[in-house]
């Protein structure tokens, strides 16, 4: 290869340089800002993760698999996965190969920033290049790959259903500019490279194109304008990128190390939260996933719109969206970049100003504590049914019966009512108040001297596990506990012939990762069928305490939809493991709804 131009420069690279410089400066400044916004503890954690080999490896792996290959998307829909990875990976390979090419043939030009990008314009083929036909082939191959992706993307715009997406977001004006410039970049590159293929060499795609152009157009006048157009398109795309959904490309490169460093959302609008907002590709996968979007309702209240409104600073909508959500976490389960919808919303709720702050300092728990302490025993199991279970006495009664049948020495902590666990107020974003309650409950539990705490309510379970830090006390949900008893041979439920379906409560499944224990337990008691969508794809019952604003009348459709999903396998009974799900389903279900404790208890002698 030899230089076609001694200067190695042509004015058409200027637009590209401008775009590149802009996007780089913008992203670097943005990244630095976000990192600076982290609090001291998080910052430290982040920097340590950057030099820890394990996290470095994980970061690289995640970056490659998520940003380039889009493995999650592949799992969701192959067409969608292929489209994204063909563009992302293909483009990445084009850039990489361009650099390799440049490095091999024009090492003295590598330092020119634009040179590898417009390599084919600046070089002319000579005999030394013959060995490079493999690279030429690869270049054409990846270009073809990207072009296929682009074609698919265009089809997807028109017919999103083919890609398994019923509903998607509407792109903004800038999004469209970005989108169209992105679509144009690669066809233009193809044409531009084809024009120069007889000089700089090409392969199966560009050479025939070159010949065709020669046959039709005959002159070289079109060569320079296409390179200009190519460069301008790149410039447009890069200049609008920070203001469009394509910001997710650079943002995700920051989000992945953030997440791998183990950060949590500390502030509603800064640091980690902001990284999540920018990482949202606005794909709208969460719209179909959202349990509230039944019958096309509440579509604009999904996580994608939360992110969009946070970027736009529309406070009124941010509030509406964050208050309405059930916090079921399904959007997070389906999200390709892992935006934590519930946490984001709780964070938004937490920065709200209230004229009246709850205060529990006046609560005197001494008598309660003393009563619990009077019966203290290290072997005793402490049973905390939770406030919701007070409305479903069948659950607590079944649990008591199970305890007795298994010969467990237990104490029913809140038989006559207890304090709230703090999770509901935490969900409302009132962290200080939640801490007060947690402190009080902790004192009571510590006073009991018990070593195991069994909970019936997943809402309690989640907060007890994550926020109580009860050293020396094992916190288990009754599903886990009963399974342990069964495994230890202390309970032996007789197998029945009932056809059961298990509903994964949000707080227990997605919230605490307990999917297998209840199923294993239920297999002991009957025939288990699965719902259409189950485990981490389970649909919220609609009764969630997560939502602050969703009224009773607005929830019926959600519940009916969840019931429809559960009844896919024609079960005789719906089994769940949450008092709230039970109450909610029981209102509309035409088949019996019971708690797993009741099911197990029924099958015990």
């Amino acid at each position, binding site marked *: 290869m030899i230089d076609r131009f001694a200067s190695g420069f042509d004015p058409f690279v200027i637009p590209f340089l401008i775009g590149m410089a802009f996007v780089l400066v913008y992203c670097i400044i943005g990244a630095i800002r976000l990192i600076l916004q982290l609090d001291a503890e998080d910052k430290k954690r982040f920097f340590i993760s950057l030099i820890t080999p394990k996290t470095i490896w994980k970061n690289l792996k995640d970056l490659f698999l998520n940003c380039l290959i889009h493995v999650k998307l592949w799992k969701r829909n192959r067409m969608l996965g292929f489209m994204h990875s063909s563009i992302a990976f293909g483009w990445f390979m084009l850039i990489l190969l361009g650099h390799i090419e440049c490095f091999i043939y024009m090492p003295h030009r590598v330092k020119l920033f634009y040179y590898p990008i417009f390599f084919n314009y600046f070089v002319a083929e000579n005999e030394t290049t013959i060995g490079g036909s493999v690279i030429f082939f690869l270049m054409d191959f990846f270009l073809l790959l990207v072009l296929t992706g682009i074609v698919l993307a265009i089809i997807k715009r028109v017919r999103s259903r083919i890609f398994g997406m019923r509903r998607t977001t509407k792109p903004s004006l800038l999004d469209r500019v970005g989108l169209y410039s992105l679509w144009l970049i690669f066809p233009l590159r193809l044409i531009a490279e084809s024009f120069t293929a007889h000089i700089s060499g090409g392969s199966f795609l560009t050479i025939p194109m070159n010949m065709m152009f020669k046959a039709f157009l005959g002159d070289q006048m079109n060569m320079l304008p296409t390179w200009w157009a190519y460069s301008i398109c790149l410039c447009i795309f890069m200049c609008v990128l920070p203001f469009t959904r394509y910001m997710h490309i650079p943002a995700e490169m920051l989000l992945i190390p953030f997440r791998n460093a183990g950060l949590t959302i500390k502030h509603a609008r800064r640091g980690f939260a902001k990284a999540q907002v920018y990482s949202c590709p606005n794909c709208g996968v969460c719209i179909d996933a959202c349990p509230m979007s039944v019958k096309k309702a509440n579509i604009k209240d999904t996580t994608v719109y939360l992110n969009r409104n946070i970027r736009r600073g529309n406070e009124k909508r941010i509030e509406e969206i964050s208050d309405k959500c059930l916090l079921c976490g399904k959007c997070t389960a389906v999200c390709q970049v892992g935006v934590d919808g519930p946490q984001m919303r709780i964070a938004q709720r937490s920065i709200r100003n209230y004229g009246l702050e709850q205060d529990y300092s006046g609560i005197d728990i001494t008598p309660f504590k003393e009563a619990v302490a009077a019966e203290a025993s290290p072997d005793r199991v402490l049973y905390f049914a939770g406030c919701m279970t*007070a*409305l*479903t*006495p*069948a659950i607590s*009664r079944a649990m008591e019966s199970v305890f007795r049948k298994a010969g467990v020495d237990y104490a029913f902590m809140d*038989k006559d009512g207890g304090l709230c666990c703090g999770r509901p107020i935490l969900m409302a974003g009132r962290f200080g108040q939640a801490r007060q309650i947690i402190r009080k409950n902790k004192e009571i539990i510590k006073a009991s001297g018990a070593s195991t705490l069994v909970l019936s309510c997943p809402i309690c379970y989640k907060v007890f596990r994550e926020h109580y830090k009860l050293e020396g006390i094992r916190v288990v949900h009754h599903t886990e506990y009963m399974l342990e008893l069964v495994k230890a041979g202390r309970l032996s439920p007789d197998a029945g012939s009932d056809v059961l379906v298990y509903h994964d409560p949000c707080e227990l499944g997605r919230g605490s990762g307990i999917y297998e224990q209840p199923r294993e337990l239920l297999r002991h008691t009957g025939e288990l069928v699965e719902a259409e969508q189950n485990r981490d794809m389970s649909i919220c019952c609609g009764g969630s305490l997560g939502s602050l604003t969703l009224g*009773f*009348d607005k929830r019926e459709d959600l519940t009916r939809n969840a019931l429809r999903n559960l009844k896919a396998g024609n079960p005789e009974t719906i089994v769940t493991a949450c008092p709230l799900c*039970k*109450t909610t389903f*029981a*209102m509309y279900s035409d088949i019996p709804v019971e708690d797993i404790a009741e099911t197990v208890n029924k099958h015990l002698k």
Partner: protein
Amino acid sequence: MKDNIVIVGGGIAGMEAARQLLLLGYKPILVEKSDHLGGHVADWHCLFPDMTPAQDVVKGLVEQIKDANIFLETEVSFINRMKMGYNVMFSNGVNVICKAILLATGFDLFEASRKEEYGYGIYDQVMTNRDLERWFNTGDDKRITGKDIKKIGFVHCVGSRDVKAGNQQCSKVCCITAIKQAMEMKERFPDAEVYCFYMDLRLFGKKYEDFYIKAQMESGVHFIRGRVSEVSENMQGQVIIKTEDTLSGKPAKITLDLLVLMAGIVCNKQAVQTASMVQVQTDSDGFLKSKDNILNIIETGSKGVFLAGTATGAKTIPETAAEARAAALAIHNYLVAQS
């Protein structure tokens, strides 16, 4: 014999309508899904406001409709609309072509177990108004027989006036039934304290207020204004209920030996199905829809299909009977106009 008339439902409304139609010279066909006539009233013991035995009322009516064609343990399988009437197929295989259909399908008593927080079917000492009437009739119920009953509670509005139970309507008769049963219990357990937990006392009917005063003055029933929210059980198997005494503004707790839930009147689900065969819809309150809710509660949007009794909403027995008579007359007028 004149034209065929099919009456669906052998409760008070169905029987009273049949009686009137017989008097008018028709021979109606009455189908009843259970094995006896009288509907819910047949399960009852005594009726307010004069403590008339329910059996007398039912027997009196049954006696007077002997001449009608009565099919017990029979349901309507399907109805086909024809040019001049309806073709009705019964589950016993009988096929009838009739000119008029009277839907006297009545109501369902709300399933008290659906309000789990009240513990029906979970705690031993919780029963419904129907269970209590059954005990009045049979004297056999393990919740009462042989038990030392010192405190009895009645919870009004169970499954009525409650969106969570899917029924926003007032069941109309529970207030007076609760007072009646409270007084009857007080008679049987003179030493017992009887409590009624109510949201509002709706005592609108003839002599109902007298009943209320009697309950206060003679029986000494305690009335507490507050809706029960939760029920739990103690070691002795007694039930502990939580409510708010809204008049003193304090949450209250009370231990009871027996809790009676005043299950309300909800629309008969099966009736909705039958009605849909003749294109009669349900109204927004979940009961069958009349042509007009003021002057024409008897007729429906479908020609030749009439309604009577609690199929259109909660009613007392005298109201039901009056409506049944009106329905009989409406059918007669309709048939006369047809021929």
